[in-house]
């Protein structure tokens, strides 16, 4: 049953977005997002973190969130552009796109690859936003029935599931998570007022700002990591030949080969984004695998191009990538639960504006939510309109020499953390965390669990303690309420998911091809 109220709310949201000033923020957001996101090695999470300070002085969060939606879409598409043109995916969600996309670019079909990515993103983004529109409020209503034990369980599930699926080792993933949880502990305990790990300094009483953690781990950590490898990796050769880029958009056969992967990608992206599986990695790789398998089966109809620039391998993962973002917004808006690093940065942005996502959000901040959802439709459209003609110009950004690029990233990272409180102390703190991020990259530790730990840790502890206060200290509350119990059982199962192929292989009595089911590191 779809109530008409949704349409009213949405129309109201559109009327806010279509205000000329807000439309300007959306265009500006998409432009900035593209501009920053197209830089090699910079994904949506880092782009939003770097651009956060720009929105600090927005008195009204609505303009800021319209801009964030634009930044996100711009950054995501910028990342795909870099993956296709120079094979440097800025985040793991574009790794699957890079495989076939770059092959297409090498064959002189860069434009077709970029076009199928752009149109696929638009199709997937629009369909999944429609799904979000109708699913968000009912789930929010359902979530308002949640008690603190359920919240505790679901926070735990989000953290553990993302940690288990992202990265290459469970031990390292969980270590990242505990470090994040520890950083979240620093400061005054919200319930008792006790000082925890403040090491006697007043600076740490309020804890470590999540923006510092994000900028430190991503921007500074990445810059230090790139710096350490400069001598062994030559500056990227320019592979952009103008003539190659000009060879046409999608032809008839491209269209007929793209539309089904777009829809299948959307069907994978939205649900996988909505459950805590770490955002876009799982659906993009699944989409790639499915398209490849289908192409193998239908091998007689058209020649199997996989491995040699198959357009299906770009269309599917790109659609999945875009659709998963609307999916990620479902738990973020209705439960206040970020399930990817990008969502975690978005949540930090919400908190900067004193907006607490959760079941009450639709009641308390109705205009804001519906404007945000409406701005997703608009952002998708702006992206499509701007991309196709402007792609030649964006590509020029790729010619910025690497030393200047990373020196610039450091400047903006410092600006971002400095503007938090106006002292050099924040820069030092971000550097310290950046050094940690550097070693994490060197030693192959995943970054996303740290961010989730910092952001979700305090919530999880609060819900845990609140549950115990209500039950008078009886820890069995977590197991007697059916919903909580189910979620806790799912959490335990999530730890075994990475070992699934091995277990299945053992049952079948065959040798597993890979030891663990792994997906790339979330950006």
């Amino acid at each position, binding site marked *: 049953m779809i109530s008409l109220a949704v349409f009213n709310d949405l129309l109201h949201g559109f009327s806010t977005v279509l205000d000329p000033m807000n439309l300007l923020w959306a265009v500006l957001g998409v432009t900035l997002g593209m501009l920053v996101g197209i830089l*090699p090695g910079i994904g949506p999470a880092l782009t939003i973190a770097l651009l956060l300070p720009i929105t*600090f002085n927005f008195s009204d969060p609505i303009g800021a969130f319209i801009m964030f939606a634009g930044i996100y879409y711009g950054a995501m598409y910028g990342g795909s552009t870099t993956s296709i043109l120079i*094979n440097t*995916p800025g985040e793991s969600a574009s*790794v699957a796109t*890079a495989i076939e996309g770059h092959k297409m670019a090498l064959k002189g079909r860069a434009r077709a690859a970029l076009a199928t990515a752009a149109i696929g993103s638009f199709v997937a983004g629009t369909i999944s936003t429609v799904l979000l529109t109708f699913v968000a409020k009912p789930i929010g209503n359902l979530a308002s029935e949640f008690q603190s034990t359920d919240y505790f369980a679901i926070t735990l599930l989000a953290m553990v599931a993302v940690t288990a699926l992202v990265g*290459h080792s469970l031990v*390292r993933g*969980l*270590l990242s998570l*505990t470090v994040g949880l*520890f950083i979240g*502990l620093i400061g005054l*305990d919200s*319930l*008792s*007022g*006790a*000082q*925890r*790990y403040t090491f006697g300094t007043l600076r740490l009483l309020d804890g470590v700002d999540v923006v510092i953690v994000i900028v430190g781990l991503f921007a500074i950590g990445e810059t*230090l990591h790139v*710096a*350490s*490898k*400069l001598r*062994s*990796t*030559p*500056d990227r*050769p*320019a*592979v952009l030949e103008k003539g190659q880029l000009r060879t046409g958009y999608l032809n008839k056969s491209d269209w007929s080969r793209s539309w089904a992967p777009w829809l299948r990608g959307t069907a994978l992206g939205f649900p996988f984004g909505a459950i805590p599986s770490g955002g876009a990695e799982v659906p993009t790789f699944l989409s790639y695998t499915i398209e490849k398998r289908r192409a193998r089966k239908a091998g007689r109809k058209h020649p199997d191009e996989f491995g040699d620039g198959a357009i299906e391998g770009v269309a599917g993962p790109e659609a999945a990538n875009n659709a998963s973002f609307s999916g990620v917004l479902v738990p973020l808006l209705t439960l206040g639960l970020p399930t990817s690093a990008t969502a975690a940065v978005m949540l930090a942005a919400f908190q900067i504006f004193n907006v607490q996502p959760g079941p009450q959000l639709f009641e308390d901040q109705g205009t804001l939510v519906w404007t945000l959802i409406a701005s997703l439709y608009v952002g998708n459209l702006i992206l499509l309109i701007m991309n196709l003609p402007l792609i030649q110009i964006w590509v020029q950004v790729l010619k*910025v*020499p*690497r*030393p*200047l690029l990373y*020196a610039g990233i*450091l*400047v903006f990272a410092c*600006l971002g953390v*400095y503007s938090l409180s*106006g*002292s*050099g*102390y924040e820069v*030092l703190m971000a*550097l310290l965390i950046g050094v940690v991020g*550097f070693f994490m990259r060197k*030693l*192959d530790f995943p970054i996303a669990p740290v961010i989730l730990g910092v952001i979700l840790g305090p919530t999880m502890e609060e819900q*845990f*303690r609140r549950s*115990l*206060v209500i039950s*008078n*200290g009886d820890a069995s509350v977590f197991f007697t309420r059916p919903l909580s119990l189910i979620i806790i059982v799912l959490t335990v199962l999530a730890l075994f998911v990475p070992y699934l192929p091995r277990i299945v292989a053992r049952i079948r009595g065959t040798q597993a091809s890979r030891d663990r089911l792994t997906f*790339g*590191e979330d950006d």
Partner: protein
Amino acid sequence: MSATEETSDTEAVETAKTADLEVEASRLVRIIAALVLVVLSGTFLVGVFDIRSPDGLDPAGPRFFPLLVTAAWLLLSLAYLVESLRSPRTAGAPDHSWFEPVALSALLILYAFLVVPLGYMIATALLFYAAARVLGSRQLVRDIIVAVVLAVVVYIAFTQFLDISLPEGVLGL
């Protein structure tokens, strides 16, 4: 701006994915990191008892979660230490150098202390120029121009249009 000056003769295309998937660090770095993690988590575990725990209605209290987190951290660090000790020695020279990251870190520390006394524009232009140089740029004039323009534009954009105050420093504008 053109990238050709910095482009090395070798035509090797950097494939980001394989570089990321490789565990780059040598065995020694892993073992040192594991030991640091063990020492840190152990210290913080002991530090749980420095947290003052008022008697109240809260059955778990402010100590329970820190205890859980640091204990899990310590156990995982020990597991990582065992994993590192068992891992095979990596052959060949490491593909990374320490000079650039250390130099950049030193620059950021200097920046943190100098940004207020020198002012945003001067400190930022210096940071940009020095960082670009550490990162391998050798075009003096171009880098100075970019550094100054970037610092001035950011300063004006943030102070005039976005109302974020940045230190004026010695320029005293």
